[in-house]
């Protein structure tokens, strides 16, 4: 039987802020985006703020209404990444099978470790507290799904064991929505069948679940019954990335094609750069836009030759923009996604015989190298450098690697 740990840094962003300012401990603290850049939402909150009813993702003005004494702090992304790396370094002393889930959570496979799962969990908690000033909650179980549910069960600074003997008592009474990958719409669909708890899923007829949710129904049935066999990726192994995307809400509404294009250039550059970093190529290119009145739409195109070049991505993104936006309603947010991914080594040279593209590939790889060495703003496209409506290239060009990508691309977890 496997021994899987799920370690979750409690209130991660807010806790890191408290490490640097102990006077904040015990007070209602929230890390929030910059309201002047129209990112004025709560990104993370302390336990005291949680007790006031503050929720991740709500607007700052809403949070202030609930808690007038709320202390608002600007985020320090580099510091969070540094702490994330430091905690993973601690994990790596116990196993090389570490699979990050966002910046603040990781699964660890410690099967056959002489210390055993519970002792390792205790040591992780002690070390996180002493070495980093953070508390972590650890779930110990025989699969990833139950380990994660375990780490959510008792917070902060706790170990929860979910064993084959106790999972029916501990897991099955939980609401169905607590199970990994169940969102609001799935909860709604399941409730039509009278399925409200994880135990209801476990005891449901698998054919009913399949009829209701297709392949996902089979997966949820396995999860609820403790039959998840998904392995914990070894450090350095890539997870099964389905798509790479980036989106932004600029500080102004986009009401002309020039601004839209320069933002899409930046987004495409960042997506292409991350594809190359992971040695991935994609065949489906999607444009996502949200208008100022908050209506969203997405358009996509499939291309014959998979790519990881910004040159190719922007060409198709601009065509999609022209086809989907009449410029009458200003845009609040824009996004670029590349999916239908394949690995670099699967690319035969016969598939990409376009010599002019080799030049762009060289140029874009050179840009990657410069940015790695001197930062993302060290080299920019001329068209993105317009002064009247400046864009923060660092904000758009998230130059994060693996772990953070998962947080950005569809696996977004509240941190």
């Amino acid at each position, binding site marked *: 039987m496997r021994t899987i740990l799920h370690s979750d840094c409690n209130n991660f962003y807010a806790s890191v802020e408290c*490490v*640097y*300012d*102990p*006077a904040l401990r015990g007070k209602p603290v929230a890390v929030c985006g910059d309201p002047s850049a129209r990112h004025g939402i709560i990104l993370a909150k302390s336990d005291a703020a949680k007790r006031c009813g503050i929720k991740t993702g709500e607007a700052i003005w809403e949070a202030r209404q609930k808690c007038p004494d709320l202390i608002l702090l600007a985020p320090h992304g580099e510091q969070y990444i*540094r*702490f994330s790396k*430091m905690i993973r370094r601690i994990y790596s002393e116990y196993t090389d099978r570490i699979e990050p889930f966002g910046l603040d959570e990781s699964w660890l496979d410690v099967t056959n470790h002489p210390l055993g799962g519970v002792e390792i969990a205790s040591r992780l908690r002690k070390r996180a*507290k*002493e*070495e*980093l*000033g*953070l508390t972590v909650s650890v779930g110990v179980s025989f699969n990833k799904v139950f380990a994660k549910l375990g780490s959510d069960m008792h917070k902060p600074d706790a170990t929860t064991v979910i064993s084959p003997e106790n999972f029916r008592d501990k897991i099955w009474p939980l609401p169905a929505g607590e199970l990994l990958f169940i969102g609001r719409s799935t909860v709604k669909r399941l409730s039509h069948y009278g399925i409200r708890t994880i135990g209801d899923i476990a005891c449901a007829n698998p054919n009913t679940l399949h009829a209701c949710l297709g392949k996902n129904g089979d997966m949820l049935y396995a999860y609820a019954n403790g039959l998840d066999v998904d392995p914990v990726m070894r450090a350095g192994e890539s997870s099964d990335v389905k798509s790479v995307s980036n989106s932004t809400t600029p500080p102004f509404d986009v009401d002309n094609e020039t601004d839209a294009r320069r933002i899409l250039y930046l987004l495409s550059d960042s997506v292409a750069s991350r594809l190359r970093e992971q040695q991935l190529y994609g065949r489906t290119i999607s444009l996502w836009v949200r208008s100022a009145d908050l209506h969203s739409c997405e358009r996509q195109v499939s291309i014959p030759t998979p790519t990881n070049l910004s040159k190719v991505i922007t060409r198709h993104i601009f065509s999609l923009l022209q086809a989907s936006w009449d410029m009458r309603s200003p845009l609040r947010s824009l996004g670029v996604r590349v999916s239908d991914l394949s690995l670099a080594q699967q690319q035969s040279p016969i598939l990409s015989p376009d010599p002019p593209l080799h030049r762009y590939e060289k140029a874009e790889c050179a840009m990657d190298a410069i940015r790695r060495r001197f930062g993302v703003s060290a080299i920019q496209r001329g068209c993105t450098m317009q002064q009247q409506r400046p864009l923060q290239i660092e904000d758009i060009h998230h130059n994060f690697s693996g772990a953070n990508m998962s947080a950005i691309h569809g696996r977004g977890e509240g941190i």
Partner: protein
Amino acid sequence: MTVRTYVQVIATFNKEGVITPHALTFHGKQYIIDRVLDRRAAAASKAGGQGIRYTVRIGEKQTYIFLDEKQRWFVEEKDSVR
């Protein structure tokens, strides 16, 4: 209340890159570090901050000095002393 006070430190790097502090200057006075008793990653729980914590002996007194991520040295100082 305890605060972080950054200090000037005289230190050496050995061939393996291990840093050893030998003296620190605190409020204008230099203190010789007689011995480094321990070094480990740690949070500065009283004053805030995080880094490599050196447990050092200065004369008869044992104290902590921290080397933070920006390679600055600091000590935890009781605010009332200032």
